[in-house]
């Protein structure tokens, strides 16, 4: 199980790209031309929907959507 389908759905609300353009290796800032503003919205939305908290000091280490998936999976249900 992973959260990538949910992450992909949220990301596509911020980036006008097909689902096939998004995978674990996608860097939303580099590959999807999203901004730090978009990224804060995506993370905030995921926090709200999944009941997790993403520490600000950790955000810069979440480079790819796979990084974000792993981070959330480690905290879901805590």
């Amino acid at each position, binding site marked *: 199980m992973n959260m990538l389908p949910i992450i992909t759905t949220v990301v596509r609300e911020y980036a006008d790209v097909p689902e096939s353009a998004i995978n674990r290796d996608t860097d939303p800032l580099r590959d999807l*031309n999203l*901004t*730090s*503003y978009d*990224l*804060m*919205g*995506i*993370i*905030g*939305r995921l*926090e*709200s929907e999944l009941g997790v908290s993403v520490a*600000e*000091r950790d*955000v*810069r280490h979440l480079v790819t959507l796979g990084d974000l998936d792993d981070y959330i999976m480690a905290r879901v249900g805590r």
Partner: protein
Amino acid sequence: MTVMVAQCPGEASASEQRDAAQRLLRLGLERAFGVRPTEIELERNSFGKPRLRGRPGVHFNIAHCRRAVAVLVADRPVGVDVEAVRGRDAYVAARCFDASERVRVEAAADPDREFFRYWTLKESYVKALGCGLSYPVRGVRFVLSPDGEPESNKPQAGFRLVEEFPAVVIALCWLRDGGRSAQSDLVQVEW
């Protein structure tokens, strides 16, 4: 400080934004410091903020969105952010604004523009520090005075909003150097 701004007549692609930013940077460095385009050699700090190699007294920062590009050139560390005014994102507000800022946004005559004033101010500060997404922006708090002057809880930094462009909000931040005040010249450049 010199802030160079080019407004896009439509919506610019990512590559168009980058091209415009590079052009404004060349113009700004030559205008403010006499740095010729052939002398521009960039490097990045550990957080990825670009700087001019071999010219420690020359500082700049670049911001772009689909509607405009802004480049701030100065003799001290600076940050600039630009955002197109559009519907505000409640998730960004919840994550990055403190409660009093959220209240003031919702009470403003134009809540969307007010929202992006706060966001761009916070982002400009983080960009001036050069530490990117790792900085906790909720702790960078602002109050806008009735005449639009930003007041913050960061006394080591000065801030200014550029309100000349209805479609975008631009925020400038400079790190204070011995209390020196900062004048800013706005230069509008054709897209």
